[in-house]
């Protein structure tokens, strides 16, 4: 209930409209009640007295009331459409905004189907309740009250009887409510799980097809669908009993009213016209009371839906930007005693990491599969936050900088590149929409992504899921171009070149050297060729940086490093290529080596 109540603030912009809606609604009830009263007046007046002349004015009054009632409904519905859709749209916008702010730890933990079902199903449940249920709940309550009061006025003993019939209704409603909330929450959660299966089956369709596991996936879906079926059946059973009860009570009351009313008429304490009016009014109660069940159920679903939405909106992003900016960013990056541990994990992934990367310098991070290389790089743009220690850029703790400032200083080319359904150009300029054509061209050049010009509409070609599909290597090159184009102070390359063929890789590396000269670079590397992009290498071992040094130093002195990077299949130091230790005179290696000697390799802080 509290969650649903919180949603009411979204109604605020529609305050005037809501007022008009309520006024017209109440006026509508008044008229709905007035029309039978006019009927009663006609029966008791002109008909009883045989007065033809009085008939027409009363009939015209009924007509006028009828027209006004319809008009009021028109106004109410028209305005209501504005208001409830406005509310739904606003909540959805906010939900999306909030989801975009929530950190990766949140997105990793939440199934996307659960998020989707909140944005679609739950919001429309809330909309239906706000737009129709809530209003009707109030209207029906008012209508029931007013009619009951009128019944009292007509003949109080029968009025009392009708009121007494509300007691079992209230008791049952309260009982029903408790059960229904639990079961509808269960259905909604199970639907979210089912949406997750659907999403994965659509996203992983290639894998499913490749293994011919359509049947297997269908089994998982079927299990989920059956779960939803069973819970829904339980829900149906519960509401069927309740709805029936709500219909029976007024009808039984009506029978008793007729019996007692007849006795009253017999004893002259009630006129026949009054009894007609009484029963007419009472029949007006049957429909509202029986729809009460439906509307209460709707309200409960809206409440659980609001709870589910509030779970997301109420999750505070634990990664929020600070106030800081960096005047003239240079990109001096330091990891100071950094620890990182996934929420709930016993062992930290990274511990006591100390590393300094100076402006213009490039450090390669090398480590076994799953050693935390990607995690380490994700700490810089705060996709994750350190759990101890700190990361600084130009002396500022990254947590003190505003997120846009920080993330415009750092650009990452991920190993698994994400392209969005938009043009090549838009994808490339994601981090810097104002980039000029020349700059775009230069970035394409660096990433060897010239193939984009051969796409049907060149840079305007729509790619991503809803557009042209590209190969893994092509996607990686675009992701690289995107990162380069955003002209970061810190450029992170997370094994960006893995899907490229050897020739292309060599060309890209050559071009990257120039880019990396301008920026601080972190390169996650699996291969010697990529490591050679860097001035120094940091070896991640058991969650911490165990060694820092130049590639050939580490090759010569650190067996673990050699095990990771030596292409020699026979492991040992005396493999077939081992004998070329002194042959560093090749063009790439040579250039680099000359450069390296000028640099300070004592970048590790202890």
């Amino acid at each position, binding site marked *: 209930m509290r969650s649903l109540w919180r949603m009411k603030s979204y109604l605020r912009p529609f305050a005037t409209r809501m007022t008009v809606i309520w006024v017209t609604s109440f006026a509508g009830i008044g008229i709905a009640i007035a029309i039978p009263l006019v009927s009663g007046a006609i029966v008791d007046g002109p008909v009883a007295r045989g007065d033809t002349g009085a008939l027409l004015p009363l009939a015209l009054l009924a007509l006028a009331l009828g027209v006004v009632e319809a008009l009021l*409904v028109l106004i109410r519905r028209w305005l209501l459409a504005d208001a409830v859709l406005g509310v739904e749209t606003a909540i959805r916008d906010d939900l999306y905004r909030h989801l975009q702010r929530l950190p990766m730890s949140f997105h990793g933990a939440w199934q996307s189907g659960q998020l989707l079902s909140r944005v679609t199903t739950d919001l429309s449940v809330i909309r239906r309740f706000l737009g129709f249920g809530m209003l009707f709940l109030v209207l029906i309550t008012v209508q029931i009250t007013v009619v009951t009061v009128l019944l009292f006025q007509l003949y109080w003993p029968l009025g009392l009887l009708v009121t007494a019939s509300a007691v079992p209704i209230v008791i049952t409603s309260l009982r029903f409510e408790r059960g229904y909330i639990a079961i509808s929450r269960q259905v909604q959660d199970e639907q979210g799980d089912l949406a997750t299966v659907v999403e994965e089956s*659509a996203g992983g369709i290639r894998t499913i097809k490749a293994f011919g596991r359509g049947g297997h996936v269908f089994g998982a879906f079927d299990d989920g669908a059956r779960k939803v079926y069973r819970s829904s059946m339980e829900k*149906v059973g519960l509401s069927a009993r309740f709805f029936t009860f709500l219909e*029976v009570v007024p*009808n039984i009351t009506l029978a008793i009213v007729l019996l007692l009313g007849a006795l009253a008429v017999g004893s002259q304490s009630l006129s026949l016209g009054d009894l007609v009016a009484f029963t007419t009014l009472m029949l007006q109660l049957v429909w509202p009371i029986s729809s009460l069940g439906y509307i209460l159920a709707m309200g409960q679903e809206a409440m659980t839906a609001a709870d589910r939405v509030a779970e997301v909106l109420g999750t505070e992003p634990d990664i929020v930007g600070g106030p800081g900016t960096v005047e003239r960013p240079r990109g001096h990056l330091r990891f100071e005693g950094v620890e990182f541990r996934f929420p709930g994990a016993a062992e930290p992934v990274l511990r006591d990491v100390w590393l300094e990367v100076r402006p213009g310098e490039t450090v390669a991070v090398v480590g076994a599969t*799953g050693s935390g290389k990607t995690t380490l790089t994700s700490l810089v743009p705060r996709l994750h936050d350190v759990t101890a220690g700190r990361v600084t850029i130009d002396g500022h703790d990254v947590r003190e900088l505003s997120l846009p400032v920080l993330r415009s200083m750092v650009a990452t080319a991920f190993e698994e590149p*994400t392209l969005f359904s938009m043009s090549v150009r838009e994808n490339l300029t994601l981090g810097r929409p104002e980039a000029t054509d020349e700059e775009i061209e230069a970035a394409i050049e660096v990433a060897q992504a010239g193939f984009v010009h051969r796409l049907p509409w060149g840079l305007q070609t729509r790619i991503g899921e809803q557009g042209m599909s590209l190969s893994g290597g092509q996607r990686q090159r675009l992701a690289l171009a995107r990162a380069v184009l955003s002209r970061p102070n810190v450029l992170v390359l997370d094994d960006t070149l893995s899907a490229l063929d050897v020739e292309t890789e060599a060309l890209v590396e050559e071009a990257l050297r120039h880019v990396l000269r301008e920026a601080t670079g972190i390169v996650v590397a699996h291969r*010697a060729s990529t490591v050679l992009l860097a001035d120094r290498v940091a070896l991640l071992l058991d969650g911490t940086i165990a060694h820092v040094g130049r590639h050939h130093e580490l090759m010569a002195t650190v067996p673990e490093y050699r095990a990771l990077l030596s*292409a020699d299949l026979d492991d040992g130091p005396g493999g077939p290529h081992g004998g070329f230790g002194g042959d560093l005179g090749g063009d790439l290696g040579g250039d680099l080596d000359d450069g390296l000697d000028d640099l300070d390799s004592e970048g590790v802080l202890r």
Partner: protein
Amino acid sequence: MSGQTTTRDWRGVAAEDREEVPEQASLVLRTRSRRLLADLLRPYRSRIILLIAIIVLSNAASLSIPFLVKVGIDTGIPPMQAGEGSGTLLVTVAAILAAAIIQAVTRQAFLGMAGRIGQGIILELRRRVFRHFQRLSLSFHEDYTSGRVVSRLTSDIDAISEMLQSGFDSLVTAVLTLTGTAVLLLVLDVHLGLVALLPLPVLLLFTRWFRRQSSIAYRRTRETVALMIVHFVESMTGVRAVQAFRAEPRNQEIFSRLNADYRDANLRSMRLVAIFMPGVKLIGNVTIAAVLFYGGWLAIGGEVTVGVLAAFLLYLRQFYEPMQEISQFYNTFQSAGAALEKLSGVLEERPAVAEPRDPVPLERPRGRLRFEEVEFSYLDGTPVLPRMDLTIPAGQVVALVGATGAGKTTLAKLVARFYDPVAGRVLLDGVDLRDLAEDTLRQAVVLVTQENFLFTGSVADNIRFGRPGATMDEVAEAAGAVGAHGFVSALPEGYDTQVGKQGGRLSAGQRQLVAFARAFLADPAVLILDEATSSLDVPGERLVQRAMRTILAGRTALIIAHRLSTVEVADRVLVMEGGRVVEDGPPEQLIARAGRFAGLHRAWLDSISDHGPGGVPDEVPGDRGTRG
């Protein structure tokens, strides 16, 4: 345009993006939806008849109550007033009670039964659409996008479920109440009844107008909600890149726009209801006023009794009240109708890669592959494979080499029958792939790509995806064979560790090893590895390389890799260029021949050595020999 072409044009999902479709096509779409609905209802035929009987009874009971009240007032009270006892009244009251009880029992039965049928239909529809999506070819999915698949299976099903839950009940009740009331009105008094029913044609015309307008409006809401879902799914899947590149404001803008489109579509439909509902109310109220006047007139003249007039007024309310209810739920009907139209469109799509009518069984696939004059081009007509003749004997390990776009992946996908060739045929053990049942083919041929999709679940679940029945030991054995056992055992819960959303808890290399283990467990006769090792680090790749001999033993293998380390295990290398095989032979021969492959091989050796180019020993053949 002839009717026939129109029919063809609107087949399948072609009408999805259209807001307004021509009259004829709209008829086609409606018929199609109706056919699907009829098909879904068929298994419940006898129960629906029973249901209708129950609801007739229930409505008769419910309708009889005002009638009995009238009887009570007209015939029960006068004898009492005259002091002739209350017998008639008591009988009437008893009848009302009986009617109330009958109504309760039938109502409960109806709600329960209708609920069961509705849920059964939803379950069946979910299953049917899901299975159909799984059956449709990749080319369909690439076009249709996953977001839309999700939208069809979530929000469209929701719309139909909504209708079955609330709408079906009120529709049936309303229709029965309407006809029942109309009959009663005429029975009570023909003249007054005719006056009361006079506006009915107006009502029907009005409803028709509304139905036409709102079906357009609801089609639009379905489409806009799908677009919104597509964007939502895409941006949430790629949220890492969104945050890293500060694309939040831009995405917010796009989402807000799609959200606003959806709102506008909804607004349009809700405004139609806002016109329709008071319209019905107006017609009802005018009728009531007319009946009041005419009925009052007749009552004064003594031609009808007060009781009849009272009953008339009651019934008229009852007549128009359900009309209100119908319009209340009309949006539910319409959006369900639009959803049904989309779903029936999906179900009408035929897989481009069709199941054979008489599948050829393949007892023990050996893995001999043959391309006979195979041509392939993608939809836009650019030829990818101009013409290919190729035989790969069973058990041969073939490395496919060539630049991006040379056609290697296409070749692989043809073998896995993700696509069918435009001309010629691909044969497995002498059988055209098109003559093999999907299951037979998938058991024989498995394709592993660099796209290592992991599903929610544990590491073991994901490996077991290759062979669902596999025991834990077999899973561990497969992991061991590809060198994944080490890292898996080191995970907090070993094989039971949850991989997280899309495998997020694992690194890219680890995911690749899992995918590899999955393929190994599947134990196919033909294994295609398309860049399947690109994310592995050197030790990982080394492990896999070492395991290759075991993994590939007794299998035909097609290996595509930019890193030529795989060539070490290949019996044969095919160098491709522009969709043609330009070099073909054992690796050692090709290297010796100093052609394209020799060049590639040298470049690769340079790249893996940490010493830069130069001085690469031409000892690869010998290398192989030592491990044979």
